[in-house]
């Protein structure tokens, strides 16, 4: 007998689900599949081939893409690292320093950039760099990325920290640990899954950013997204699909990694709580 509240028996459930999945994933699927196409065409399938992947690494545009990919990864790693450190300190201050003046304001200021339209941030950042006569190049991209990555890194870190009872650090201090030792020996290891998630999220956001990067980058400096955009303007070729598919793969790997770490850790915590 069917359960009365079984999701599958909601009227229209199957149709709506399929429609959503189609809209969300069909374009990605098309790109991924056609990146393995044997021909120049981006619409007609002519058999499986890795030629476009080979083309990305050895073809006429390979030098440009390699440089762009290098820039992207360097910026993503540096921006994610710095943003994660700042977010960790911010979360510690907001969640562990008790009540201080402007605490609520601080939380708002940290998360506000998530709500600001990206184009506004891009224009504002560009005007800012111009105003202080900061020469545009890799450095301006990095600084901009650090700034907009902080709220993304902050979210999983603060969520994680909220789940850590203050009694752990109190127990450490009760057992002769200084404040600093309680932070490095207890709080930091317990926060690590949140920090890793924050880092991965910031990394992907930075790797993927186009609008802000396009505004603040200097002439001749490209990241993967701006390089892809530049190439697409001259017509979509299957090698763009191959690059996109590789970027997608990197994202999927990172997100899976983050999820696995979170799940393993969650299991441990739940197990311990259940027994109490």
């Amino acid at each position, binding site marked *: 007998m069917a359960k009365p509240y079984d999701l599958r028996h909601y009227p229209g459930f199957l149709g709506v689900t399929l429609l959503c999945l189609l809209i969300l994933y069909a374009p990605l699927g098309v790109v991924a599949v056609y990146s393995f196409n044997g021909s120049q065409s981006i619409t007609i399938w002519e058999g499986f081939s890795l030629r476009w992947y080979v083309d990305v690494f050895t073809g006429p545009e390979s030098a440009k893409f390699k440089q762009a990919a290098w820039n992207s990864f360097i910026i993503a790693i540096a921006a994610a690292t710095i943003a994660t450190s700042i977010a960790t300190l911010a979360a510690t201050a907001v969640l562990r320093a008790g009540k201080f003046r402007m605490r609520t304001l601080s939380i708002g200021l940290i998360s506000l950039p998530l709500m600001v339209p990206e184009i506004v941030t891009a224009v504002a950042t560009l005007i800012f760099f111009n105003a202080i006569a900061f020469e545009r190049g890799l450095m301006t991209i990095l600084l901009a990325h650090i700034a907009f990555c902080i709220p993304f890194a902050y979210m999983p870190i603060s969520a994680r920290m909220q789940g850590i009872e203050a*009694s752990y650090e109190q*127990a*450490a201090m009760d*057992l*002769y*640990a200084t404040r600093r030792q309680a932070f490095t020996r207890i709080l930091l290891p317990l926060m690590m899954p949140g920090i890793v998630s924050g880092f991965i999220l910031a990394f992907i956001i930075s790797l993927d950013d186009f609008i802000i990067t396009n505004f603040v980058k200097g002439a001749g400096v490209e990241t993967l997204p701006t390089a892809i955009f530049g190439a697409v303007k001259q017509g979509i070729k299957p090698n763009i699909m191959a690059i996109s598919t590789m970027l997608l793969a990197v994202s999927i790997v990172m997100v899976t990694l983050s999820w696995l770490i979170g799940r393993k850790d969650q299991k*441990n915590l739940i*197990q*311990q709580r259940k*027994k109490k």
Partner: protein
Amino acid sequence: MPQNTEIAIDVRDAVKRYGPFTALKKISLSIHDNEFFTLLGPSGCGKTTLLRMIAGFEDVTEGAIFLYGEGIDALPPHKRPINTVFQNYALFPHMSVLENVGFGLEMLGKSKAEARARAGEALEMVQLSQFATRMPSQLSGGQQQRVALARALAPRPKVLLLDEPLSALDLKLRKAMQVELKHLQRETGITFIFVTHDQEEALTMSDRIAVMSAGELQQLGEARDIYERPRNVFVADFIGETNLMEVTVDAINGGRAQCHLGGGHKLTCDAVEGITPGAKVHMSLRPERLFLSVEPVENESLTGRVREMIYIGTDTATIVDLDGGPQFTVRSSNSSRGNARTFEPGTEVAVNMEHGAGRLLVD
């Protein structure tokens, strides 16, 4: 307690305020060296606040706390030779049992080898040696509790604070841990300060008990003092089961107060300070110090009708409606030597008081 006993913790006129709210109102108490001391009271009475002030997690708004004669108010928690067993244990989830227990010693700067050895000894003390390499999440609640205890005892603190550590355990385990805690206290000679809201637990384990309510110390004394000679209505009502009666004092003769309660029933008990003839006060009568009989055994017995008899294993509780007066509960033991007998509801009976059963309470 002998007069020359050394004082481990001396709380002098300690006040704790959170903004406009006063959590502790001028508490003074001395906890002796090598004592099992209990802070007892309902939730929100300030007992945990006082414990956290001794540990160093809350500062003292007014007054001072001394540890073996030295003021500790300026010391942060990690500089106080005092350890705590937390209510939720707070075992570090990313460290093994042995690492947890050795943490305090390591922070004190002991070598890894010494920290391990002494952590091992502490684990042995709580019979958990075979679990040294486990993670806390792999232990049962009772085992986690013991690890928390071993962790707090391993650095050999001068005072051990226990914040309702048994409240999460089931009844059987709790009873076993009560005995074990008492035993550990004797064995280590460390002063224990135990916080609980469970009066039975407090009576079972403590050398002395401080009963607290609404941020104030209500009474301090040994278990027997507090149970048999409660100072006020709160203590009489909170500790154990009692019949609280409003009585009017008629006369005081030779240290005895003659009183009467609603319905004209007369009662006599020891007079206490601060009571004058004509005063309306409360009297506490412990149910187990009362007994029933068919005929009054003395001319002062109270008469009434049995309403209900409730069998509770070791005892039987009989509820009696006094003629024209309040309701009484009388407890009698079910042992073969006991005095339990069965009365049908509605039976006329006399309620008799053992000598010293009644206790007058000021306020």
